[in-house]
């Protein structure tokens, strides 16, 4: 199934691979420039190309950073540079220390004036044309890092590490993430004893499902779960509730808020997962680690794995 997805979206993947290839090349260039220094002290000029093919030039490693996406905030902090953050978006809530920072709106309605007044050396964000254009217009350096799937995580870590002037730390972090993910998956597969439950992951009570193409779908696939949604429906399809009933998932994964009432939906009492109470509900804090493609991906994997181990038939 994974192979099929890769082929289905080959042009997209190629595009992303190409542009990330560029950024990795540029990262490598930056790394060569500073490779004779010790990891924390890198302070040479930084020249990188971001996911939007825009060149970022900095004279020194940035000391004042604004992030406009929780996964990017987490990446900066996981690289050990939380102290360089001067503001984040309103949704960033991990680690706890970022809660005290000024909140500069969201990715699409960022508070330009607040950001400018904080005099950041660079604003790290995902693709948001209006905000990026306006910030550049005002002379603020921006770096766009798109993270859509599992493979993007390591690329984003490398790219952000390049921006911060800590490429070696980014390599170490990537190794750590890889190891943690592999351990989590290995442990989960042992505990699951070859069980391969049919699952429905509800992103929103729309009901919107997490399809195999989505980041969450990738996590489920790694744990050997079978998704009731096919990849042809796209990353987050809005389903007919009937679809879920007809596909009769073994396990339903959703938010704590919906967990108690899911059985009251018309016809859903017939679903195996509801009848046998095989329901995984996630608190918002746990949910964050599952839905954000960032350095805490292994935590999210473990949260899903723990629940599947407990309830999967």
């Amino acid at each position, binding site marked *: 199934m994974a192979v099929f997805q890769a082929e289905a979206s080959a*042009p*997209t993947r190629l*595009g992303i691979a*190409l*542009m990330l290839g560029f950024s990795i090349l540029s990262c490598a260039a930056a790394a060569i420039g500073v490779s004779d220094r010790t990891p924390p002290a890198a302070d040479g000029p930084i020249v990188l190309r971001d996911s*939007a*093919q825009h060149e970022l030039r900095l004279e020194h490693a940035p000391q004042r950073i604004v992030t406009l996406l929780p996964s990017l905030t987490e990446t900066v902090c996981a690289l050990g540079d939380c102290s360089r953050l001067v503001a984040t978006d*309103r949704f960033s809530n991990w680690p706890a220390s970022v809660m005290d920072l*000024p*909140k500069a*709106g*969201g*990715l*699409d*309605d960022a*508070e*330009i*004036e*607040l950001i*400018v*007044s904080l*005099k950041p050396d660079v604003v790290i964000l995902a*693709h*948001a*044309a*209006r*905000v990026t*254009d*306006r910030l550049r*217009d*005002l*002379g603020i350096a921006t770096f766009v890092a798109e993270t859509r799937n599992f493979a993007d995580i390591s690329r984003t870590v490398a790219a952000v590490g390049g921006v911060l002037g800590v490429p070696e730390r980014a390599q170490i972090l990537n190794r750590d993430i890889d190891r943690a993910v592999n351990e989590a998956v290995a442990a989960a597969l042992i505990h699951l004893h070859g069980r391969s439950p049919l699952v429905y992951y509800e992103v929103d009570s729309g009901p*919107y499902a997490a399809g195999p193409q989505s980041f969450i779908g990738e996590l489920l696939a790694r744990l050997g779960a079978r998704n009731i949604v096919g990849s042809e429906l*796209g*990353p*987050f*399809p*809005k389903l007919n509730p009937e679809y879920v009933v007809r596909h009769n998932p073994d396990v339903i994964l959703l938010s704590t808020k919906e967990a108690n009432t899911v059985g009251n939906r018309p016809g859903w009492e017939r679903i195996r997962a509801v009848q046998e109470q095989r329901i995984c509900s996630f608190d918002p804090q746990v949910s964050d680690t599952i839905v954000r493609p960032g350095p805490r991906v292994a935590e999210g994997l473990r949260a899903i794995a723990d629940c599947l181990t407990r309830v999967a038939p």
Partner: protein
Amino acid sequence: MNAANPSVRREAVGRRDEVVSSHFALWLTAGIVVTALLTAASLLVGTSSIRASVGWLLAPDALSNTVLWHIRLPRAVGAWLAGALLALGGAIAQGLFRNPLAEPYLLGSASGAALGVTVSMMATDASLAGLAWSGELGVTGAAFVGACAAITLTVLLSRGVLQTASLLLAGIVVAFLLSAVTSLLLLSSPDTWRAMQAFLLGSTAFLSWHSTILLAVVFVVCLVPSVLLSRGLDALTLGEDTAQSLGVSLPALRLALLTLLSLATAITVGQVGIVGFVGLVAPHLVRESFHISQRRLLVAAPLCGGALLQAADLLSRWVIRPAELPVGIVTACLGGTYLVYLLWRRARHA
């Protein structure tokens, strides 16, 4: 419409004009003063902790300089211009369609703009070529192209501009159709939904000097010809047949005014997103103050609309400071409340 004796009506209109002439001058002055005050206030209110003081105004540091002259001022001026363009569009639409509920978006421009933005965002997500293409065009360009395409579609559907009724219907059909397409596209790409929402609620937060100058040029380009065409609109208030018997070439007038309306709306939507109610309410506000000719309405309504959007922008920055409300929410609250008041007052008079 009483079209029995146009010459008597014309004289009556003329007399009324003389009576309100001094009122009108006073009103215009008040409007300009309010605008100046609002602009000054806009310079002092913002999300950052910069506080205005005399010394700060006299010798601003580089940061205050940027915030004051490159963020707050273009935003204040741009908000005024956007409000003025919407009000001008509203005044033209209400005169042309002889319908008090006509508003600048009635030819489907808002839905077209929304679709344009959605397509451009999805293209960004889809591929590298799409990224380059949409980066070139930008959100504002995509919105402008979408709005123009929607208006063209409306005019094609109504088979030209001959029938106001069929234009209105075509506008509604196009608006619903394009909204449906937008929703369909958003379903398959929920990531875009969030960015779309920010656009749909309208925002003056991203106005730069570039956009402000663009809005200013378009404002002049739209205002001057529409004032020149206002005699035709005056004649039109007496009914289409009467207007034609007075020597007004209706197809030419319609085509010219629709072009101006479309240009005003498409540019504004591109720059500030979909800001509701300003275009609908501003002409009413002016008309409720005093009876007025179309020419004066076309001058007064933009002044009123500009001040209205500036005030809404100011409120949006102030209500939940240091955070901001989308300005569309504020205009909808203000405009909606005013319309309810208008209805209530009319009901009482009746």
